[in-house]
């Protein structure tokens, strides 16, 4: 088999068609002449010999055809001819072409855009070598959910486990970058030296951390991201070896990460420094707080299951070398997940639901285009009958029609790429803050391939039914078909397709409606505070990082004074944790009245270290007892406020005032004095509006074990909250010029932003539902309008026989509404089944909520009625004389 010859000979026929044809003709002629010569040798006259030769050869054209069709170039030639014909047909029917191409572009573009978001999260592995072998290990929280581990746990597991080639622990870090133009708060991570080895991505410039860097009181070194180097330090080469001031201390930059490095654990992290924790047997330092994430890379030839079992075994067998405190005793074992699953778990349901929804939209678009093709096919029966009579086989007809539909799909797909581009931009812009791997959402090679594949698939699917039915048509009847206005075939198919469209549209509309009402319910939930006229910002005592608590306390007190003096400010306060801001700060609370001494029976509660004016600023109601005052300061009995739910849970039926507790690091320590509960305040939502009934406790900022370095300032203003932001910032900077101020927002904006993910899903579903509704309406209209055109003659006859305009109107409308109603009924069943996949996104509403369903049904039937009415009016306006004469 000579590939070269196959190619060149075929190409020659394609390119020099005339010369190739001539060669073939000459060869056949030669054949003929030889035959004739033989006959002459047998004694016939030359003319008779020619005739006999021709009879024996058969049709010379057929012979040439046979030879020509055996080459591969014939298929190409056929394809080119089909494409040219298809293009001509599309050009001559601009209305049909534009509608079909736009419909397909909408469907294909939407699917491609959603796929580009879903691909990096659901399908592609994380952007690390052998990403499937990176696992995340978590501890068990009080409610069984995974919780961060302690550094001590990491030390023990890293030393004792054989299943991992490297393990690393990661801590959040938000250093203030000072010394350059404007103080900036960076997002970063404090990591053990092995972190980048676990990920498998070494720094592009400079070096990685090593064990010597990661000792307590070790050197101050840092690795920065490529983005930070470009943004603040004039390039990657310039920053290497430079000293930068983070949190008031000089750090030497020893490495720069590669451009495009994705740090999936904290995507916005730009700077890394060694954690520099050591062994700590006294259990009272930060080494034993649950605030580190533990990741490990499996050793070669070890499976995740083996590693999990080994870790569980280690967890259940404590050794003397690695003592454990009661709150990190690993009694319940550990939780091990693949890192990929961990990172994407939260958004998976929403993404899967979106993918299903967009596929429904594509299905509706395909149904519309199929209907259009069927309608056109009915008009082309004569053409197909002629072709079949001339010898075209059924396969040839089908392949020609499929070429037409593939061309249509290709045009739709090309336009759809533009739609997808817009869609991707919109997705990235609207994406909720927690969406993982946002940086990977773009139109890349995988997305293009997907677009190509689905375009081809859609082209085949859309053309399949029309091609089958067109090629099957009765030749005789087709050739005889006189008028285009008699009832065409495929009525049942088209009606079934319309019913399917309506059903799919109903499913999408129900989903969008349920999400909409969920969001309404969510925002009807009382946050527990009054967010209006409140502005917040996070203030960091950057230059006092190493000063004592009293210095920091003085800094915040002075800042508070300065802010209160700003005109327009009613009240101001500091808090260590801001509700509904993404903060998550929980500590244990030990009750004096609790029977057992086991700290694990403690309650976990959100800690708020506040100045006394906090409750006035946030308007949190007092239920019992008293609020914190300025007299609650260092040296006096520690006063604690708890919220209603905590009081109900911890002291059912009793008065919590006067009860004794120990909070935070003092819990479980018998040498520390008891705190006293002095009041009960209302519940406040912390994590989100959807999660309620948490435990909160409040202490005065002078009475906590330390003074937080970063606190949130909350200010209640007389007029617009945001208008005073510059003045407040000035007041803060008047106390300390170098204090970074971040997360500036009005409380209203923060509350609105909490439902980010739900809102995002709702936006998507609304867009899909509207598209589906429009497409379904167009579909109904198209089928009915086509039906009316086909039945013009029949309608004329009816009108001539005395049917009133109203009767004809009713006839057409009833036809269309019957389809719509059947579609709605089927769609209801489908909606009940499919809303199960939305369950996690709904809030406060059952997935069978009758009001939503009712509203959607009314909307859909109303739109269907309008879509029926327009062609019905046209039918009713038919003048029988004109119609009957037009035949």
């Amino acid at each position, binding site marked *: 088999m000579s590939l070269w010859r196959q190619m060149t000979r075929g190409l020659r026929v394609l390119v020099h068609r005339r010369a190739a044809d001539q060669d073939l003709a000459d060869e056949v002629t*030669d054949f003929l002449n030889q035959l004739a010569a033989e006959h002459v040798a047998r004694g016939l006259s030359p003319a008779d010999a020619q005739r006999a030769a021709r009879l024996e050869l058969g049709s010379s054209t057929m012979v040439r055809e*046979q030879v020509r*069709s055996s080459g591969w170039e014939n298929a190409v030639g056929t394809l080119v001819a089909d494409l040219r014909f298809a293009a001509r047909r599309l050009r001559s029917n601009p209305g049909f072409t534009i509608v079909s191409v736009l419909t397909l572009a909408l469907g294909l573009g939407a699917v491609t855009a959603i796929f580009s978001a879903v691909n990096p999260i659901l399908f592609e592995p994380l952007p690390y070598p052998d990403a499937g072998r990176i696992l995340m290990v978590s501890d068990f929280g009080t409610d069984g959910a995974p919780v961060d581990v302690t550094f001590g746990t990491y030390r023990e597991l890293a030393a004792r486990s054989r299943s991992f080639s490297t393990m690393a622990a990661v801590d959040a870090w938000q250093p203030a970058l000072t010394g350059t133009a404007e103080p900036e708060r960076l997002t970063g991570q404090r990591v053990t030296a092995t972190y980048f080895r676990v990920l498998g991505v070494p720094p592009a410039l400079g070096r990685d951390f090593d064990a010597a860097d990661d000792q307590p009181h070790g050197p101050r070194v840092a690795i920065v991201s490529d983005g930070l180097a470009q943004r603040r330090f004039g390039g990657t080469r310039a920053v290497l070896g430079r000293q930068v001031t983070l949190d008031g201390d000089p750090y030497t930059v020893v490495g720069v990460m590669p451009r495009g490095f994705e740090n999936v654990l904290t995507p916005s992290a730009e700077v890394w420094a060694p954690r520099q924790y050591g062994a700590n047997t006294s259990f009272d330092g930060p080494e034993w707080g649950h605030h580190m994430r533990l990741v490990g890379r499996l050793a070669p030839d070890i499976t995740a299951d083996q590693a999990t079992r080994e870790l569980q075994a280690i967890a259940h067998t404590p050794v003397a070398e690695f003592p454990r405190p009661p709150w990190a005793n690993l009694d319940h074992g550990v939780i091990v997940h693949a890192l990929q699953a961990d990172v994407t778990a939260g958004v998976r349901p929403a993404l899967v639901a979106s993918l299903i929804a967009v596929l429904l939209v594509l299905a509706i678009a395909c149904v519309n285009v199929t209907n259009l093709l069927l309608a056109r096919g009915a008009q082309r029966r004569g053409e197909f009958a002629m072709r079949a009579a001339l010898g075209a086989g059924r396969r040839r007809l089908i392949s020609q029609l499929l070429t037409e539909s593939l061309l249509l799909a290709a045009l739709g797909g090309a336009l759809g790429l533009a739609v997808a581009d817009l869609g991707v931009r919109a997705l990235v812009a609207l994406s909720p803050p927690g969406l993982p791997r946002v940086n990977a959402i773009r139109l890349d090679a995988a997305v293009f391939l997907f677009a190509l594949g689905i375009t081809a698939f859609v082209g085949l699917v859309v053309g399949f039914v029309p091609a089958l039915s067109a090629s099957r048509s009765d030749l005789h009847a087709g050739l005889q078909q006189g008028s285009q206005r008699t009832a065409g075939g495929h009525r049942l198919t088209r009606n079934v397709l319309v019913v399917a469209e309506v059903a799919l549209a109903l499913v999408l509309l129900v989903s969008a409606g349920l999400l909409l009402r969920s969001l309404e319910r969510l925002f009807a939930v009382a946050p527990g505070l009054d967010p209006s006229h409140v502005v917040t910002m996070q203030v960091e005592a950057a230059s006092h990082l190493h000063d004592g608590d009293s210095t920091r306390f003085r800094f915040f007190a002075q800042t508070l004074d300065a802010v209160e003096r700003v005109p327009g400010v009613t009240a101001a306060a500091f808090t260590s944790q801001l509700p509904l801001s993404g903060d998550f700060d929980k500590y244990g609370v030990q009750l004096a009245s609790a029977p057992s001494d086991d700290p694990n029976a403690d309650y976990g509660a959100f800690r708020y270290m506040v100045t006394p004016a906090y409750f006035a600023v946030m308007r949190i109601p007092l239920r019992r007892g008293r609020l914190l005052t300025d007299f609650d300061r260092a040296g006096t009995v520690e006063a604690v406020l708890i919220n209603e739910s905590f009081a109900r849970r911890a002291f059912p039926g009793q008065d919590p005032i006067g009860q004794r507790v120990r909070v935070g690091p003092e819990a479980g320590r018998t040498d520390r004095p008891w705190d006293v509960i002095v009041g009960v305040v209302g519940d406040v939502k912390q994590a989100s509006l959807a999660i309620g009934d948490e435990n909160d406790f409040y202490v005065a900022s002078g009475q906590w074990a330390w003074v937080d370095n970063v606190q949130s300032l909350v200010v209640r203003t007389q007029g617009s909250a945001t208008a005073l932001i510059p003045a407040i910032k000035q007041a803060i900077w008047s106390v300390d010029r170098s204090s970074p101020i971040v997360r500036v927002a009005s409380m209203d904006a923060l509350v609105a932003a909490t439902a980010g993910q739900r809102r995002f899903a709702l936006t998507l579903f609304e867009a899909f539902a509207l598209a589906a509704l429009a497409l379904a309406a167009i579909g109904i209209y198209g089928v009915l309008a086509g039906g009316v055109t086909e039945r013009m003659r029949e309608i004329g006859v009816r009108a001539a026989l005395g049917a009133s305009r109203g009767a004809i109107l009713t006839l057409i409308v009833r036809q269309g509404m019957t389809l719509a109603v059947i579609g709605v009924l089927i769609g209801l069943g489908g909606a009940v089944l499919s809303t199960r996949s939305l369950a996690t996104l709904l809030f406060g509403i059952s997935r069978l909520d009758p009001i939503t369903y009712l509203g959607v049904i009314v909307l859909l039937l109303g739109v269907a009625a309008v879509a029926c009415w327009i062609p019905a009016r046209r039918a009713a306006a038919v003048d029988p004389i004109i119609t009957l004469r037009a035949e």
Partner: protein
Amino acid sequence: MPCRRGARSADRHILTIKMRNCIVLPHHPPGALVEEPNTDVIQGTLDLLILKTLSLEPMHGYGIGRRVEQISRGVFRINAGSLLTALQRLERAGWLDAEWRQTENARRARYYRLTRAGRKQLEVESADWKRRASAVARLLNAEG
């Protein structure tokens, strides 16, 4: 409406169509060798016959057909279409070389010649054919 070429007397009973403007394609080509119905076997046998014929001397298409008919004593009659198709296929596979020669009357004839690869293919195919034929013969004699 089918297009018509310039009419010649013998063409009137045949629907002749010019390729370029009408879209008509042929049905399945009629069987190459009159006797056997199975096309796959036919194609393989046809290749073998052509290669063998050309192993003796270069020949033009018509001559090959005639030689096969003569030597097989009329068992194998190859029609023009199948023969020319097979020759094109074999030429593209690299087993034949083709060249144009002038005949008398200033007409051209295409002469085919076996290449070295073609000679090797001929050996392979005839060995295969002999093996298959003897196997069939054994099977047919088996009950005996």
